[in-house]
């Protein structure tokens, strides 16, 4: 099986609330996967399910061919960096690495040492006094030195300044280039994801709205603008994701499996930003119309 993460209608419920629902994904190996969506959409839940920190309420999840978190061998295959890159504030950088060595059978001490040196971190420094960027790099070092096949990162760059963010992504991409590690990371920063990701998953309201290879998604979506018309008159192979109209003009974002031939349209390519926003607002609109109670109150 050549999938890093495969889920079959997986769901996770907290009390009566679904945090993730009916999530079916097959993510091929060797990808850098970007997970996007509004806060509370289920991104962290999906990452924690894949890491084995949570067990699903329904459905199945397989990571690198095994059940997440069920055996030492399975744990060794997956590196996880939680939100805000937590570290033990009172322990030194060196102590973090020693701990990594004790806890991980395939620990690559040389790799960890090299990275710390290259980052210019003092091994004696306590983690509590590291900058946010340095702490994130320490967490990444520990995740990388266990030599996993998949690294999961929950909002790794959210709290970093632009320079630290760039440096963090550079080191992450170097790891991918050197070791062929697969990566799944969540982020709100589409500009960053655009650079690093080749697979995109958009999660909104506990459900997957869009998933696929970035290049295929960009090639199959177009922005059309032209004289006003009813989106219902489009060819059957063109699905409207987003539409806005003025009294004369229509602007659509469509998904189409073939070329758009109608000469009335001006066709522009879409960016990852366009895609994410279009699918997020479509899902939000569907969500509000599904709850008529709110309309009555208003």
């Amino acid at each position, binding site marked *: 099986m050549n999938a890093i993460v495969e889920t079959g209608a997986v769901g996770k419920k907290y009390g009566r609330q679904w945090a993730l629902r009916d999530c079916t994904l097959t993510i091929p190996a060797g990808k*850098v996967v970007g997970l996007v969506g509004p806060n509370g959409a289920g991104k962290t839940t999906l990452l924690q399910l894949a890491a084995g920190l949570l067990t699903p309420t329904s459905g199945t999840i397989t990571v690198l061919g095994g059940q997440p978190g069920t055996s030492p061998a399975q744990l060794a295959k997956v590196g996880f960096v939680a939100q805000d890159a937590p570290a033990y504030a009172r322990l030194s950088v060196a102590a973090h690495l020693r701990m990594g060595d004790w806890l991980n059978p395939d620990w690559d001490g040389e790799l960890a040492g090299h990275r710390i040196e290259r980052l210019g971190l003092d091994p004696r420094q306590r983690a509590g006094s590291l900058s946010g960027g340095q702490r994130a790099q320490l967490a990444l070092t520990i995740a990388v030195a266990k030599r996993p096949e998949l690294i999961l990162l929950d909002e790794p760059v959210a709290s970093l300044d632009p320079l630290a963010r760039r440096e963090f*992504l*550079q080191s992450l*991409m170097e790891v991918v280039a050197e070791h062929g590690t697969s990566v799944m990371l969540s982020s709100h920063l589409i500009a960053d994801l655009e*650079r690093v990701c*080749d697979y995109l998953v958009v999660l909104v309201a506990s459900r997957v709205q869009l998933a696929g290879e970035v290049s295929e998604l960009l090639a199959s979506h177009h922005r059309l603008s032209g004289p006003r018309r009813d989106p219902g008159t489009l060819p059957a192979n063109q699905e409207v994701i987003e539409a806005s109209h003025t009294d004369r003009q229509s602007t659509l974002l469509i998904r189409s499996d073939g070329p*758009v031939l109608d000469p009335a349209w001006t066709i522009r*390519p879409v960016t990852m930003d366009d895609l994410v926003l279009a699918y997020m607002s479509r899902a939000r609109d569907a969500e509000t119309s599904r709850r008529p109670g709110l309309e009555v109150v208003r």
Partner: protein
Amino acid sequence: MIEFQLDAGSGVATYLQLVQQVHQALQLGLLKPGDQLPTAQQVVARLAINPNTVLKAYRDLEREGLVRARPGQGTFVVRTLPRTDPVAQARFLASMAEWLRSARSAGLGPDDIEAIYRTAFRDCFAEGVA
């Protein structure tokens, strides 16, 4: 060795930007047969982009017959592109400038002119239909 730059706002796919920069470097004579392209690691370490993007760009260049990957060594330029003839370039620049002046004196503004240019460009290269 050349160094790649990225224009994040250009809307051009990252791998295409890399391909175009190699094309330009070949046309300008900055890259010659035998020269090595930066390794995927080097590009990634500089630009913080996905290594697969670099490999995709290099595969495209290889398919064009411009570069060849030597296992364990790197990717090398094997063929160059003809330099754009400077005389032809100057001639077309002059006729374009002439055309622009006449469009302006006919009352067209910069936006009109750009729209005309884009339409003509697209028709000529059949772009915009992915």
